[in-house]
C-alpha cells in the first residue's frame, strides 16, 4: 500500500494505488427495484394488521373506570372552600358515589388523575434539588438556587424538600368504600407502598443518614417544611420508617413529573387478601370518601379517581392498536397504488432499460 517508488523518479509523486485512496472500496450498491419494494410494502401492511388485531384483543380485556370528583356529590362545598387560600388549614371531607358495572378481575390499580396541571413547565421542572433529596447534608441545609422562591422561608430557614415540585404535592386522601348488600360499607383495602420505580425508591431518593442512632426528625434539624404542606417531611408516614421522609412513596410518585397536562399517578393497589376482594374488584355500588385538600379551581383543573386493570401491554390504551390498524390500511392502499402504477403506467420497468 505504500508508494511504489520512493524519493525521486518520474512517478514518485503519484498517489497511492490503494482501494481507499482510489475510491475502489468494495461496496454494496442497493437499488429500489420493484422486487424489493412491493413485497416489503405488502409484508409491512400484513405485520401491522396482525399487530393491531393482537393489541386490540389484549386491550379489550382491560377495564377502566374514571370518577371525576372535583365538584361531584358533596364535594361542591369543599371545591368552593379551596378556591381561596384563606381556609387552607380547615379540613374538608366529602363523598361521591359511583357504580362499577362489571367485576374487575385480577390486580386492580387505583390512580388519582389531574387535568390541566402542567407538571411539564420548564421553571417548574427545574425547581427541585436532586442532591438534597438523595440525602446529602450540605444540600439539605443549603438548597439549590433553582428552588427559589421555595428554597428558604421568611425566616431564612432552608426548606426540605425544596422547590415548586415538592411544594405542590398532591395531598388528597382517597378512601373507597364498598356498599355491601345489607347496606353496610366496608373499606376497600389498598397497598399504598411499592407504587414507585425501584431506582427512585432505592437510589434517587434517600433520607439524610441517621446511623440508626437518632430519629429522622433530628436528621432534618434546622430545616422547615415546604410552605404549602401541613406536616413536615419526617411525618409523612409515622408508622413505617421505610416510607418516611424523602423516601415516602407518595412523594416519590409526585416528584416524577408527568409529561403532559392530563395525567394520572398511582395511588394504591387493591389488597386481595381477604373478603370480597380476593378475585378482584366486585361489581356494585361504591362510595369514594375524600379528604379534599388539593385546590384545582385556580388553574381550572379537574381531579378524578381512576380504577384500572392491566395486561402485559398495560392499562386501557386504544391508541396503539388503532394506530397500527390505520397504518396497515394506509400501507396496503399505497402498495396497491404502487403496484398499479408499476404495472400500468411504469411499463413494468421498461423505463429503466435504455
Amino acid at each position, binding site marked *: 500500500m505504500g508508494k511504489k517508488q520512493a524519493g525521486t523518479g518520474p512517478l514518485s509523486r503519484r498517489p497511492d494505488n490503494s482501494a481507499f485512496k482510489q*475510491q475502489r*472500496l*468494495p*461496496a*454494496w*450498491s*442497493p*437499488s*429500489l*427495484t*420493484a*422486487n*424489493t419494494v412491493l413485497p416489503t*410494502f405488502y409484508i409491512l401492511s400484513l405485520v*401491522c394488521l396482525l399487530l393491531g388485531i393482537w393489541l386490540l384483543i389484549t386491550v379489550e380485556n382491560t377495564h377502566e373506570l374514571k370518577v371525576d370528583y372535583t365538584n361531584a356529590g358533596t364535594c361542591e362545598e369543599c371545591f368552593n372552600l379551596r378556591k381561596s387560600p384563606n381556609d387552607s388549614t380547615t379540613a374538608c371531607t366529602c363523598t361521591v358515589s359511583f357504580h362499577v358495572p362489571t367485576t374487575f378481575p385480577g390486580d386492580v*390499580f387505583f390512580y388519582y388523575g389531574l387535568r390541566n396541571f*402542567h407538571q*411539564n*413547565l*420548564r*421553571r*417548574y421542572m427545574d425547581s427541585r434539588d*436532586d*442532591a438534597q433529596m438523595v440525602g*446529602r447534608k450540605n444540600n439539605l441545609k443549603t438548597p*439549590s438556587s433553582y428552588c427559589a422562591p421555595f428554597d428558604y422561608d421568611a425566616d431564612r430557614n432552608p426548606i426540605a424538600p425544596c422547590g415548586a415540585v415538592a411544594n405542590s404535592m398532591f395531598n388528597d386522601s382517597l378512601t373507597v368504600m364498598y356498599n355491601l348488600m345489607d347496606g353496610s360499607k366496608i373499606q376497600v383495602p389498598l397497598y399504598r407502598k411499592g*407504587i414507585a420505580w425501584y431506582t*427512585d425508591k432505592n*437510589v*434517587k431518593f434517600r433520607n439524610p443518614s441517621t446511623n440508626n442512632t437518632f430519629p429522622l426528625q433530628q436528621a432534618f434539624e434546622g430545616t422547615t417544611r415546604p410552605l404549602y404542606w401541613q406536616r413536615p417531611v419526617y411525618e409523612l408516614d409515622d408508622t413505617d420508617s421505610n416510607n418516611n421522609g424523602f423516601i415516602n412513596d407518595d412523594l416519590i410518585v409526585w416528584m*416524577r*413529573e*408527568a*409529561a*403532559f*397536562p392530563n*395525567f*394520572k399517578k*398511582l395511588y394504591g393497589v387493591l389488597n386481595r387478601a381477604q373478603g370480597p376482594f380476593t378475585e378482584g374488584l366486585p361489581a356494585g355500588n361504591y362510595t369514594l370518601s375524600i379528604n379534599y385538600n388539593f385546590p384545582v379551581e385556580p388553574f381550572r383543573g379537574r381531579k378524578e379517581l381512576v380504577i*384500572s386493570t*392491566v395486561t*402485559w*401491554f*398495560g*392499562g*386501557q*390504551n386504544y*391508541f*396503539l392498536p388503532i*394506530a397500527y390498524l390505520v*397504518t396497515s390500511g394506509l*400501507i396496503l392502499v*399505497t402498495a396497491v397504488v*404502487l403496484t398499479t*402504477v408499476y404495472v400500468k*403506467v*411504469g411499463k413494468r420497468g421498461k*423505463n*429503466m*432499460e435504455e
Partner: protein
Amino acid sequence: CFSSSAAAHIGVGISGQEGIQAVLASDYSFSQFRFLQRLLLVHGRWSYLRMCRFLCYFFYKNFAFTMVHFWFGFFCGFSAQTVYDQYFITLYNIVYTSLPVLAMGLFDQDVPEQRSLEYPKLYEPGQLNLLFNKREFFICIAQGIYTSVVLFFIPYGVLSHATQSNGVPLADYQTFAVTTATALVIVVSVQIALDTGYWTAINHFFIWGSLGTYFTILFAMHSSILFNIFPKQFHFLGSAHNTLGQPVVWLTIALATVICIAPVLAFRFLKLDLKPQLSDTVRYTQLVLQKKQKPCGRVGRGVGGG
C-alpha cells in the same frame, strides 16, 4: 485569463514546463491536460452528488430533531421545556448522527467511475442544478417537519395513557424523553441508510456504530454510578432501563419508524418508476450486468438488493 476565472466555478491549473503560477492560483491542479476529463466527469460529478445528499440529510435530521420542541410547546405552556435530556441534545449532532452522514459525504457513488466516463451526459444534473435547488430544499424541510410531527404525536398518543404491566404509569416526562429520543435516532439512521447509495465497510461501521454508541451512552448516563457523583446533572437515573424494558415503548418506536419511512420509500420508488434519471438507468443496468456475471445467483460485490 483573470476574467474567465472570475466567471468560473472552479479554477484548474496545469503544472508544467511553463512554471507553477497557474497552480498557485487555482483550486485544483494536475500535470496533464487529459486529467481534466476525470476531474469533471468522475470526481466533480461525485462531489456534487455527495454535497447535495449531505445537505438535504443535514437539514432533514435537524428539522426532525428541533421541531418536536415546537409541538411540545403546545402542551407545556410554551415554557421552552426541552423534550429530550440535555446530554442527548448536546451529543445528537456531534456523536449520534455525524459519522454516518460524513461517510456518505466521503464515499458515496451513484454510478461507478467507468460508467461516469462512458456517459458524459451524466454530468448534466450538476450543470442544471437539479439535485439541490429551492424545490429540493423545501422537500427536505417538509420531510423533516413531517418526521417531527410523527415523532411527537405517536409517543404522545401512546404514552399519555400507557402504564407498565405493574400498573405504574408511563406518562412521565423522562419516559417520554427517552422514547422520543430513541425513536428519533432510529428514524434518522434508517433515513441515512436509505440515502446511502454505496455501502462500504466504513459506512456499515459508522451507521451501526452510531446506533450502538447511542444505546451505550444512554445506559451509561442513566446509571446509578454517574448519578451518585453528580445527582443534579444525571437526574435521568433509571429511565433507560425502565423505558426500554417496556414492550409498549418498542411498539411505539416501531410504529413511528414505519410511518416516517414508508412514504419516503413510496415516493422514491414512484420517482424511479415514472421518471428515472440517466444515473438511475445506468445504475440499474450495472446491477443487471453484475447479476448476469454471476449465473449461480451468488451475491457478490456491487450487486444491489433485488
